[in-house]
């Protein structure tokens, strides 16, 4: 078993608890154990905090990292926004003495110190990583293959970009997420401009919802054009933007899509035999039933 401190963030545990439940259960079936990271907070939101004062963003994210350092465990997480804060701040502070000293001065006030002793991973990259899990283990864990459905992969922004500060390679047309979908028996579809942002980030969802939804709407048009039965992503904030966003798009622009939006962990959960109730899919704004009827 590979053990990780499970950093939850906000939207997964507090809006889509199925993402949290499925992460814990699905990972265990492929040799990954997620341990609670007690006392963790918001990552903090890179858009809101980073925009106001980057120094607070560094210090707050560092506090979350230090909690895992104290457990002597690497962090695993399931949200691109959290990845931006936790992965990036960990990386920056490891390599920038001046910023690290500044952060440690503040952390000393609460008897903490950033040491730079752990690494941060997105659960999706651990699933793909042959050394930890890999596609074969994912495939072998599937008991209910999701045959007969087309799924559009939304990679999101902050997992892979900026490319030079990450390790995922190509950010124009990556294919690893499609491979993860294929491993569940579903058919990944290609669609126009698939790397485009969901529209929610940078505080824009809160600042100008119509602007954010207009970006989301463009994405939805492209997803529908490809005939997708569902969208999958690895970020609960993108999930919220596509899922609740479709209701808001209907209200604001009159466009209707009704395309269910599922986190990859939720899809994997279904493929491993978890029931829709085990995943709290009824909390999704867009009804997942038509999709479920096709696969179950």
């Amino acid at each position, binding site marked *: 078993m590979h053990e990780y401190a499970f950093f939850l963030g*906000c*939207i997964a*545990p*507090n*809006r889509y*608890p199925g993402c*949290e*439940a499925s992460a814990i259960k699905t990972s265990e079936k492929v040799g990954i154990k997620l341990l*609670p*990271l*007690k*006392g*963790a*907070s*918001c990552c*903090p*939101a*890179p*858009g*809101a*905090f*980073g*925009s*106001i*004062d*980057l120094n*607070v963003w560094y*210090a*707050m994210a560092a*506090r979350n990292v230090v909690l895992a350092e104290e457990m002597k465990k690497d962090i695993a997480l399931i949200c691109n926004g959290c990845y931006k804060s936790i992965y990036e701040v960990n990386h920056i502070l490891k390599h920038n003495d001046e910023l690290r000293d500044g952060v440690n001065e*503040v*952390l000393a*006030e*609460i008897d*903490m110190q950033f040491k730079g002793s752990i690494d941060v991973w997105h659960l999706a990259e651990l699933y793909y990583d042959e050394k930890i899990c890999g596609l074969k283990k994912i495939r072998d864990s599937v008991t209910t293959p999701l045959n007969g459905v087309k799924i559009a992969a939304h990679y999101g*922004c*902050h997992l892979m*970009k*900026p*490319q030079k500060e990450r390790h995922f390679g190509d950010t124009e047309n990556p294919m690893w997420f499609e491979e993860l979908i294929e491993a569940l028996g579903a058919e990944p579809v290609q669609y126009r401009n698939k*790397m*485009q*942002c969901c*529209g*929610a980030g*940078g*505080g*824009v969802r*809160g*600042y*100008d919802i119509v*602007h*954010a939804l*207009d*970006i989301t709407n463009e994405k939805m048009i492209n997803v529908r054009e490809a005939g997708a039965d569902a969208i999958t992503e690895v970020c609960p904030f993108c999930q919220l933007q596509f899922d609740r966003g479709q209701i808001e798009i209907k209200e604001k622009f009159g466009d209707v899509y009704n395309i269910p939006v599922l986190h990859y962990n939720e899809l994997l959960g279904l493929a491993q035999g978890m029931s829709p*109730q*085990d*995943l*709290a899919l009824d*909390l999704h704004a867009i009804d997942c039933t038509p999709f479920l009827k096709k696969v179950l």
Partner: protein
Amino acid sequence: MAAKTYNIPELDTKLADRRYHLTDANPEFTQKILKTSRTIANMCYQCGTCTGSCPSAPRSSYRIRLFMRRCVLGLEDEALTDPDLWLCTTCYSCTDRCPRDIAPTDVIMAMRNLAFLRDIVPKNFLQTCQLIYNSGHGVPNNDVNRAARTKLGLPADPPTTHSYPEFIKGIQKIIDHYGLKENADRILKGD
């Protein structure tokens, strides 16, 4: 070559002088951005690849290339008072495509930090800070969700600051160190 005259003495003097005029510019602004953004914004040659990659550009007047120019020329007021500053989704498409290896996204973040120092900041950013200050979460738990969590076999509150509120004090100390909550309260009250 003599400069064209418009018969406005002040303008004629300016036009005769082909140097770059600093009257609206603050070179310190450029330096501050370079430091905070940790990117080589001064290397921008205005190719426009960033704007061409930007999901916000086709649906607004927001032009990231324009902000890059304002950064290089030190046009502080123009940059910080433009409401478009807050339309960047931080998607980093421009950053991955910039042929000069600049991170325009981080220039925007640095500008937003500087705008905040002048109390220029949209409310929703401050409200998120207040929520985190009070609960540790930007998106806190609620009763519907607690019921759903319990049904899933999860604890009603996640093992974060929600279950361990003793950690909130540390978070407040960090935020107070930078005076952020105080400023957020003050700015929101003034609105």
